[in-house]
């Protein structure tokens, strides 16, 4: 069984255009949950919007101007490029690609479907797999490609697949991640479900009132131990698991049975026990239901000692990208030996005795658990370890 190392990371979110900027925000505790400047929707709720126009993002992605690209594609390309650069990967012939977004390029298609004849060059975005293919083409990736769509656990599941492919010898190196941009479709969806926060998301807070949607691109390069030989390594993917709670279409069970199962299975794969985990990066969406059920699951398995935080108070809920984005934050926790504060928390929820990290601080970080849960009962846990 091959070990799986993280050799590259890249991300863009509302709190920074790259790893360095986001690290600074995580340290300072600055979030960017604001009213939207670029998203066109009558639903005026706070969102974690990346403060750049599509033209600015095009230039950040190193693409020529004068062409309209999907914002989701641009976020993915920016993050993927940074991940490949940090991994010093110039030969991409055997690189595989695993990607995710919630609804492909819905931020484009929702605006052009009524008059397709006026947008000939954008019609390709109606193909559900266009963004990963465009990223592969742009970066010269020739290996096998997979696209996962399991709502908010999508890119965590991508990391799990990449790890399994490398462990079994079916891949040497994989670029894996997710990308999602704000769209009228998603903000209306969360609004219709009555789980969008009117005041700005406060995960694990007593007065939490829902999700603030965000947007991000986040990618990691995973390589087998052999392929990574001689390279700087950020950490190792030690554990992973995905289960289905088979309970409800969108909600989690109050006891968090699915979450507990995913966490326990991931610990078993990693040959670790709950006491070995130094920090938990929770899914923590800021909804009443998720945060209660997740804190019950964590409380049952970890008690009240292990530091826990949700980083969605910084970045909003970036849907299909959040698993990869939070994997990057977990890897950074290991590299920096810091645990991230639960941004925007005012009063910790009374139902839990979890040890919520209020402000970013130094800590010994050897093993990080990262949870990502999606609609459809989809529960995924990943464990990242220091080498």
């Amino acid at each position: 069984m091959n070990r799986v190392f993280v050799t590259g990371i890249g991300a863009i979110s509302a709190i920074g255009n790259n790893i360095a900027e986001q690290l600074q925000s995580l340290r300072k505790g600055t979030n960017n949950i604001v009213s939207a400047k670029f998203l066109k929707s009558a639903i005026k709720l706070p969102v974690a919007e990346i403060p750049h126009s599509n033209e600015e993002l095009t230039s950040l992605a190193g693409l020529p101007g004068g062409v309209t690209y999907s914002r989701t594609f641009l976020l993915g390309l920016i993050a993927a490029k940074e991940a490949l650069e940090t991994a010093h990967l110039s030969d991409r012939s055997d690189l595989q690609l695993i990607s995710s977004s919630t609804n492909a390029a819905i931020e484009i298609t929702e605006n052009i479907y009524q008059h397709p004849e006026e947008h000939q060059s954008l019609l390709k975005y109606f193909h559900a797999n266009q963004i990963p293919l465009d990223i592969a083409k742009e970066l010269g990736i020739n290996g096998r490609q997979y696209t996962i769509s399991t709502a908010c656990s999508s890119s965590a599941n991508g990391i799990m697949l990449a790890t399994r492919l490398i462990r079994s010898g079916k891949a040497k190196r994989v670029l894996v991640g997710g990308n999602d941009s704000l769209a009228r479709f998603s903000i209306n969806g969360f609004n219709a479900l009555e789980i969008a926060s009117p005041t700005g998301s406060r995960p694990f807070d007593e007065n939490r009132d829902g999700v603030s949607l965000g947007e991000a691109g986040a990618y990691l390069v995973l390589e087998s131990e052999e392929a990574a030989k001689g390279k700087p390594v950020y950490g190792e993917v030690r554990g992973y698991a995905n289960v289905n709670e088979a309970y409800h279409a969108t909600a989690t069970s109050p006891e968090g049975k699915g979450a507990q199962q995913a966490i326990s299975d991931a610990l078993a794969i990693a040959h670790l026990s709950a006491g070995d985990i130094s920090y938990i990066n929770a899914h923590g969406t800021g909804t009443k239901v998720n945060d209660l059920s997740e804190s019950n699951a964590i409380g049952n398995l970890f008690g009240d000692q292990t530091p826990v935080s949700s980083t969605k108070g910084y970045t909003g809920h970036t849907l299909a990208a959040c698993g990869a984005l939070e994997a990057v934050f977990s890897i950074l926790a290991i590299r920096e030996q810091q645990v991230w504060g639960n941004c925007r928390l005012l009063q910790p929820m009374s139902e839990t005795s979890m040890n919520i990290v209020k402000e970013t601080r130094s800590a010994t970080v050897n093993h990080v658990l990262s949870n990502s849960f999606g609609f459809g009962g989809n529960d995924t846990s990943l464990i990242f370890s220091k080498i």
Partner: protein
Amino acid sequence: MASYIISSALLSPQKTFEGTFPEEPIITESLYLLCAEPDYKQIIPPVRLRRMSHILKMGLATSYLCINESEVKPDSVIVGTGQGCTGDLENFMRACSEGPEELLSPIPFINSGHNTLAGQIAMASQIKGYNMTYLQEAASLESALSDAMLLLEEGTSECTLVGAIDEFSALSFKIFDRDQYWRKEAVNNLDLLKAEKPGAIMGEGAGFFCISNRPDRQNIELVASESKMNFGTEASVKWVTDLLNQYNLTTNDIDLLFVGRKGDQLTDDTSYAGIEQLFPTATIAAYKHLSGEYPTAQSFALWMAVKVLSGQQLPAYATLKAGTRGTKTILLYNNDLSTENVIIVRKG
């Protein structure tokens, strides 16, 4: 470790839901083919049926049939869908783009999640293990199958339910019509592959397969499920030849070849002629005149392949060129111009 297909079920525009090759195909003169649907009320409990979209009904009904036919209850679910839950995605997109954006019904939003079907199957059949959805155009089924093979190899699963599904979408039909993707005039589907005109006819379908680490008495082995991005840089023929090598097979081992010819004068020969020539003595079969074209249509061919390996005779209406020998090993090849996809199955 080997993987085996121990049950299969197919809902399609043909009468395949009964589990055998229909004597005669359904002939339609149309621009698209829709599924010959069963009475869902007989299959899906009414309380579930009430809020279900078309694709969820198709998928859940077919999953029940496949699980019922299987000797082993699956512990994991993997769905591959080319375009996902497009019907309710379009409904919700219209609701928030054309109407006032106020408190909309969340039902179409929930049903637009592309993993809704895999979640519904988990709930309906109480399958609480691994649950995955690939949304990947023509490579979706192949990703789902290779993930299932890996799960079995790891010992994570003993039996995984793999589904391939796409529903007819009025919007996709309209959008992709713009680049000669679809026929302009209705065509008799049985004449589709003969008529030399540009464009395909659209279809839909749901194919489900139980993949197990132990064979049943039919002993049908799933040997390979592979995909490759197609940027026109490498010849398809070389890719397929290399794959055969990788699985210790030669071109002579392939007795039956399924090709994804869709009746499109502009692309059929460039996509398939080279591959057909690679297997000069094999029987060649086609199916998109029966299923219509949709991203996961190769599941229709996989269902046929399973039936042939179970001893049913390949129908004349699916045979492009008859070979001379019996069928032990079958290769399926589908090329949608952005990806190429191969599945290999054989009698164990």
